[in-house]
């Protein structure tokens, strides 16, 4: 079975995002970009399936600007076998990404797609589910555990839901999206980073895949939320209780 892992290049999670001076977009120039943390978990999940003999080949895919090649090299340094960049300078919405991924999946015929549950820039939490719908496949979002039985036509997935955990029996092929506790991703070693430079990276375009990626949403404004006004330090518990009772009256 082939496993396809979409990986997104995002602003590093340690960096605070700011709006540009015009308030028309997020200021990204010159800032450190990294692989979306949920996608690192997705790559790790795919690697473990390969190591356990359930997966034969891992293909990483990224959609976006040329610099997404770095993200794909990272995925290959971690152990993905090859990768595909769908290169475009257009802003891609989740529906467009899902349509691009569908075209690649029709070509590559993977048995499983593992996505991150959300990208930490737009926090949309959509792409995996949209892809599953477009393919008519089963989905299992927010996965915290995967149980594969060799040769089985279904996989057991445990999901993090609001009240606790749910386990689903999921027909293959399927789209799984990763939650934080699925695994702890490994780090790339120097020899593997070197090896990744020689692994195949194919570049395609939305046009070549026949996908219209025209946005459906227009961004009118990006702004900092109204700041919380600074608070005070209280000297002891008695003063805290007094403030809560008499100043803001919440208890």
């Amino acid at each position, binding site marked *: 079975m082939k496993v396809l892992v979409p990986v997104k290049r995002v602003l590093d999670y340690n960096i605070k995002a700011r709006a540009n001076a015009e308030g028309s977009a997020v200021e990204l120039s010159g800032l450190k970009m990294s692989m979306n943390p949920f996608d690192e978990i997705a790559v790790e999940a795919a690697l473990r399936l390969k190591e356990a003999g359930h997966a034969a080949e891992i293909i990483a895919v990224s959609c976006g600007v040329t610099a997404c090649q770095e993200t794909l090299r990272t995925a290959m340094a971690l152990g993905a076998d090859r990768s595909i960049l769908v290169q475009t300078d257009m802003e891609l919405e989740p529906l467009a990404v899902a349509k691009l991924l569908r075209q690649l999946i029709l070509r590559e015929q993977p048995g499983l797609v593992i996505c991150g549950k959300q990208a930490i820039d737009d926090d949309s939490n959509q792409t995996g589910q949209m892809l599953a719908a477009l393919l008519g496949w089963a989905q299992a979002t927010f996965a915290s555990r995967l149980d594969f039985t060799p040769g089985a036509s279904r996989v057991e997935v445990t999901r993090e839901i609001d009240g606790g955990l749910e386990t689903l029996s999921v027909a293959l092929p399927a789209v799984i999206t990763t939650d934080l506790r699925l695994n702890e991703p490994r780090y790339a070693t120097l020899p593997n980073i070197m090896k990744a430079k020689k692994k195949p990276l194919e570049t395609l375009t939305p046009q070549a895949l026949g996908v219209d990626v025209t946005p459906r949403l227009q961004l009118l404004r990006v702004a900092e939320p109204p700041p919380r006004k600074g608070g005070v*330090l209280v000297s002891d518990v008695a003063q805290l209780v007094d403030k809560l009772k008499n100043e803001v009256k919440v208890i």
Partner: protein
Amino acid sequence: MTQILVIAEHDNLHLKAATRHVLSAAQALGGAIHVLIAGFGCESVVASASQLPGVEQVLHCEEASLAEGGAENLAQLVATLAAEYTHILAPATAFGKNWTPRLAALLDVAQISDIIRVDGPDTFTRPIYAGSLWATLRSSDPIKVVTVRPSAFEAVPETGGAAPVLQRPGVPDSRLTHRTGLTLTHSSRPELEAARVVVSGGRGLGSAENYQALLEPLADKLNAALGASRAAVDSGYVSNDYQVGQTGKIVAPDLYLAIGISGAIQHLAGMKSSRVIVAINKDPDAPIFGVADYGLVGDLHTLVPALTAAL
């Protein structure tokens, strides 16, 4: 004409409070509001829904394939109803997030996730980058599929309406997924996302034993829900459904107590809209003090029992 379909969240027995928050976003849009109850053996939920104020009609789909609220069947069902509506709204909870993108893809429209403000019939504001920024977006799609952040909209009351109920056919089971296990955390405490007071603990507590011994008595005194940082969940102090933050639950209670939590941006994303924030931390430079209304610097092992005793 604005025609809104709100998809109710429920467990076949009870209507979840999130639905009443979504209704208030629907009312902000204006127009006729219908509520869909899709499930199996969910008559009591239908009865509750028909009493919600401002609802013109309740649609009731009763079908075994809808019992578990699985994404494949539910998205298919809502897709068959969608043509009559301009807006389809659901809560941005684990339930809503799971199936709404599937619906949007079936309808070939964009989804607008996790809105915190309605700016117009096609314009919405939503947080991005863990709430560091707010983006205002306009949709050009004929049907707007929108998930609503419950804590950003006041809940409508439970009663006051008397909407008629219309039975609608369900959909056949896709058989793509079925549930084989369900472990729900049972707690006598208020629901985390609906609680008036939340007591949240972080890695500073040091162990599951300390978390329980220090925070439970405090939460009892305040009739509070318990929450946690990711570090506390990852360290096994409490289960995943306690996590507050960018990738956990978003809460906005009247009072949020952050105990032994440093205040990473991903945590702040889940609680910084709380009305009053109290932080207890031994590090005076901890970022949590930057958002706290009242900060208490010191050792939580002595401060928390002292606070519990003082209440």
